């Protein structure tokens, strides 16, 4: 008892102190980092890496002298030693003078300010450092010859070498004949001196690497001489090289530590118990990750948009409407997204109603079919429609021309236009609204509609007075979802819009990024425009849902009464079937057919036009397999990391009342609402080392981008599953004596397993075929299947890319099938 009381009294103070120390520690790291940056700025080096090289080379020089070179000198007579010292000084000063005018004076200055006793060893080390970096160069053949001398011969060789340094007439050791045999005077001495160093191990790979780093990061001659001095004197300490070499990283880490300490303090202030909860650490870790990789890039981008050159300027924003191409892109994006939203919702609501509330034939089948479109990569649809509606060779245009007896002119339909793009966008984004509305309709208590019927309203009247108003919140949020998705889409406009010069904000951003600095400024402006729009919509949809979320789930689940379509039943079923054929069957069939064609302009049934070659070629290529492997790996890692975070967050959100659990939730929601290209652009601008993190051109940057975009899909799935498991199920396990972890593994885990699996796939599938972010973030070694497909489409051959597209579709369908099996039919997309 006593101990608990004591510890209770002491704990708050200890915790407060710990927080303070943590905060100060963070500040100290920031300050050090800033000092390091300042020091670096004054050093004249062109990269921070110089400090690491200097530190390591000093260690090398020091140990080489103490352990190897010094003992060899000791074997010489005093006189010889003195002569050698003189020679070294002479070689040093001429080497320095040849590097930079006044190098000799600089050397004398350095020696003068050194204590007499130290001068000798300093000059020796200076020479060693100088020769390490500047040479004379020893060819690798000679290097081998020198280093090959080993065992007993080494001592003799070294003595002979040093002697011949002093006296030109002494015969050179055999290994050196080739190297210095023809040289005389200072050249000969310099070469022999270098040979001496080389023979003592300065040729090791690690050293060579450091030398190369130094050469790269110290270009200026004066800076190079000061680097030699720093090496010889050991002016860079281990800490210093860390701090200067990683000053930006240090500042970032410092900020994170200080921020965590502050946030923890804030959380604890509200809690008052001053107990460090492990959950907070988990929250902080997630928040840190999101702050660094999601929020910082966004904020930096905002900053860059308004302070392009460090000074406030609206130029970037102005270019959005003063530069015609940009203005066009903005207009096209707004028009396309609005039209897609309107058409998509107008399609989705009647479809959802027909499929969910009427006795339409095959309603379950149609429902599954419309939902299926959701998991098809949009660019595949774009490719299909391009094949169908190309004004010259589009299959559908050919049919129409034959049907309408038009002459062999282009048209009548042209996909390379804004309406064409809107059509393709609509046919791929209406499922978003369809799913949202269908789900809400399934949840709606059917007796709400029945009450209207029994009040005397006809089925149609009921739709307009009850169903539609009740669905309004989900209708709006579905519509907004379509708007955001359409405006952030890159795949469709890049495949359909670019050839037709119908630019959108996303395609402009990608083009600008490839243009370098001015391009980056323009891209930033566009990205900020996109981001602001997305955030506004996210906010709107949140408000709409929060305000008008009706709780209409009925007490007992009842099969809704289906509206009798009577004489309309067959015509409407035909209409829906035609729609399904037009939007789903024809495009997919086109992709499949095209993949077997030799000449894309002819029918696949035309003689000699059928081949399996496209499939063989595409899937036989190493680059295809590599990108497929990349995609599978990246998507698996993303999904696995994502689902771990999702489960953690679900637990925090559903099972705890811990303060601050909504912070990561908010950030994750924001991330998923941010347009893909914006996420990618932000990462490009901040993750190339300028903020202390350099993951540019790596797989990490892609996985992080995918995580930010798709984490919420997984999280929502697990959260909703956990919210449906009453907490008493867990409590009754604990009351039966099971520990927390046992309860999680035996009760909660199995109950929500289907949702965890579904969440994993929901992250995996879009990451697997992602294109928009990949286009900006890929490097030659991190190409993914989606990007590879895009490259094939643009640069290689359409039939081949169709084979690949169908391959992707098959993989996605296979994954969907696995998911369905794994969750015993409870989930599929």
């Amino acid at each position, binding site marked *: 008892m006593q101990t608990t009381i004591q510890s209770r009294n002491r704990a708050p103070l200890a915790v407060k102190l710990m927080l303070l120390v943590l905060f100060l520690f963070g500040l100290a790291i920031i300050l050090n980092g800033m000092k390091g940056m300042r020091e670096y700025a004054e050093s004249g080096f062109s990269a921070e890496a110089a400090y690491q090289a200097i530190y390591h080379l000093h260690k090398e020089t020091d140990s080489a002298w103490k352990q190897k070179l010094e003992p060899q000198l000791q074997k010489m007579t005093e006189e010889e030693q003195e002569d050698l010292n003189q020679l070294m000084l002479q070689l040093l000063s001429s080497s320095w003078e040849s590097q930079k005018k006044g190098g000799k004076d600089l050397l004398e200055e350095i020696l003068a300010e050194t204590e007499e006793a130290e001068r000798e060893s300093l000059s020796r080390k200076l020479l060693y450092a100088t020769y390490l970096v500047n040479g004379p160069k020893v060819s690798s053949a000679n290097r081998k010859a020198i280093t090959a001398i080993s065992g007993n011969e080494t001592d003799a060789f070294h003595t002979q070498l040093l002697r011949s340094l002093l006296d030109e007439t002494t015969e050179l050791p055999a290994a050196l004949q080739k190297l210095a045999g023809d040289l005389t005077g200072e050249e000969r001495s310099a070469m022999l001196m270098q040979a001496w160093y080389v023979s003592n191990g300065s040729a090791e790979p690690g050293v060579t690497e450091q030398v190369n780093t130094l050469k790269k990061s110290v270009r200026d001659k004066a800076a190079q001489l000061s680097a030699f001095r720093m090496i010889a004197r050991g002016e860079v300490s281990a800490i210093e090289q860390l701090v200067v070499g990683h000053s930006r990283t240090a500042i970032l880490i410092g900020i994170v530590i200080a921020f965590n300490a502050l946030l923890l303090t804030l959380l604890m202030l509200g809690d008052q118990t001053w107990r460090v909860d492990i959950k907070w650490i988990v929250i902080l870790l997630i928040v840190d990750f999101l702050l660094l990789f999601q929020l910082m890039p966004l904020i930096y981008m905002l900053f860059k948009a308004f302070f392009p050159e460090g000074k406030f300027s609206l130029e970037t924003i102005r270019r959005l409407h003063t530069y015609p191409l940009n203005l066009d892109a903005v207009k096209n994006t707004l028009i396309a997204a609005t039209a897609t939203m309107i058409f998509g919702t107008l399609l989705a609501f009647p479809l959802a109603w027909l499929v969910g509330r009427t006795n339409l034939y095959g309603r379950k089948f149609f429902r599954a079919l419309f939902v299926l479109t959701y998991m098809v990569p949009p660019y595949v649809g774009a490719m299909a429609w391009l094949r169908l509606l190309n004004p010259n060779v589009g299959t559908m245009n050919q049919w129409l021309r034959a049907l309408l007896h038009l002459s062999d002119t282009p048209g009548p339909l042209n996909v390379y236009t804004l309406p064409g793009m809107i059509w393709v966008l609509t046919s791929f984004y209406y499922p978003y609204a369809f799913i949202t509305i269908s789900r809400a309709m399934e949840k709606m208590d059917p007796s709400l509609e029945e009450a209207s019927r*029994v009040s005397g309203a006809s089925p149609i009247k009921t739709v307009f007075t009850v169903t539609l108003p009740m669905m309004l919140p989900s209708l709006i949020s579905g519509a907004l979802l379509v708007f955001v998705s359409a405006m952030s889409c890159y795949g469709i406009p890049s495949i359909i819009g670019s050839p037709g010069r119908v630019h959108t904000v996303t395609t402009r951003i990608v083009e600008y990024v490839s243009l370098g600095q001015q391009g980056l400024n323009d891209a930033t402006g566009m990205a900020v425009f996109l981001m602001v729009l997305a955030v506004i919509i996210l906010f709107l949809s949140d408000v709409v849902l929060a305000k008008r979320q009706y709780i209409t789930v009925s007490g007992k689940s009842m099969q809704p009464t289906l509206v009798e379509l009577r004489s309309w039943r067959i015509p409407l079923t035909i209409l829906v079937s035609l729609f399904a054929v037009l939007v789903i069957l024809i495009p997919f069939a086109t992709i499949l057919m095209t993949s077997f064609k030799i000449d894309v302009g002819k029918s696949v049934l035309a003689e000699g036009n059928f081949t399996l070659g496209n499939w063989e070629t595409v899937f036989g290529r190493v680059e295809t397999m590599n990108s497929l492997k990349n995609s599978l790996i990246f998507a698996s890692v993303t999904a696995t990391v994502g689902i771990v975070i999702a489960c953690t967050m679900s637990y925090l959100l559903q099972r705890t009342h811990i303060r601050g659990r909504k912070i990561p939730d908010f950030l994750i929601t924001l991330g998923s609402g941010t347009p893909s290209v914006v996420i990618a652009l932000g990462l490009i601008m901040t993750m190339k080392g300028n903020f202390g993190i350099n993951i540019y051109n790596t797989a990490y940057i892609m996985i992080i981008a995918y995580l930010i975009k798709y984490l919420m899909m997984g999280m929502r799935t697990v959260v909703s599953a956990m919210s449906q498991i009453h907490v008493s199920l867990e409590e009754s396990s604990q009351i039966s004596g099971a520990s927390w972890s046992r309860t999680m593994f035996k009760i909660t885990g199995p109950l929500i397993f289907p949702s965890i699996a579904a969440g994993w796939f929901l992250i995996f599938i879009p990451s697997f075929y992602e294109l928009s972010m990949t286009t900006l973030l890929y490097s030659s070694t991190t190409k993914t299947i989606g990007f590879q497909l895009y490259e094939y489409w643009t640069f290689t051959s359409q039939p081949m890319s169709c084979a690949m597209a169908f391959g992707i579709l098959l993989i996605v369908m296979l994954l969907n099938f696995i998911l369905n099996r794994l969750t015993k039919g409870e989930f599929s997309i």
Partner: protein
Amino acid sequence: MATVTIQNVTKAFGDNVVLRSFDATFQDGEFITLLGPSGCSKTTILRIIAGFEKPTEGEVYIDGQLVSGGKTFVPPDKRGVGMVFQSYAVWPHMNVFDNVAYPLTIRHVPKAEMKNSVERVLGIVHLSQYAERFPGQLSGGQQQRVALARALVAEPKLLLLDEPLSNLDAKLRESMRFEIKEIQRKLGITVVYVTHDQTEAMAMSDRIFLLNQGVVQQCGTPQEIYNTPANQFVADFLGKVDFFKGEAGNGKIVFPAMNGQSIPYTGTRTGKVDVAIRPENFFFTEKGILNGILETQYYLGDVDDCRVRIGETLVRVITNGFEFRNLRDGQQVSLGVRDLMVFEDNGYLERMLEINT
């Protein structure tokens, strides 16, 4: 004021027959209750009358007019009935006034008249001051009354109520029960009421249709059903009852499981019988007809709930006989029987036992 005639109605979902040849006629102004355990298809009958389900076979007439049957099917909106749903189904996007006025809006009733009608019904259900509120701001009981007002506002000839009180707490349920009955009396409409609560049914109904597994077990006034149940199920479903196996004949019934003790019997049945006796129909007396040992007694305030062992049988006795309050456990007691019900032993009890175990 409507009559409802249901002729030979059968309803099946696929191969699953949930209602078998249901026949009934509900008279003008009658309060009819469809009573039964869950899954007995009482709601299905209601939905067939409303037009939300089509009967697989048979016909339904409202006021002599065929509404379901053969090729004829009148949709719910053309039947002119009022209905209150179990979940109330009050539309959350309309306020109370709009909810209630909805049936009148459909009928294009003039504004002024509509306002009068709505205010009148809101008065009936005591919600006049809530007209501007939205359902989200109302309690369950208030929402239920909104649903009732909405069902009544168009003055339907027939009012259908689907377990309207099941989501309310006990107190509110009791008061609403009498309010509904009161409204029905005032308006003189025909009401079909679905419930699984026997007390509700007893308190409100003119006639009760007791259903089990899609078959009508008995139909009659509450008194008839309670006092002269048609079979063991009816006796068992209404009130508390214990069954004893006996052998009838020679003016008495012998109970082998009660050490062969017997009670006098003047009825017509002979041979193996099921005797049903309600616990409150036993009473302690100086010289009774059954003798046993008092095993336990629970004091419940208004009554005593006792168990008396007679041979192998444990008999439940509910008594308020004050002179026998001082009995001790283990004491020899004698029981009289006020009333009993005798059924043919048709294996019903064994079947029930099977279902329960």
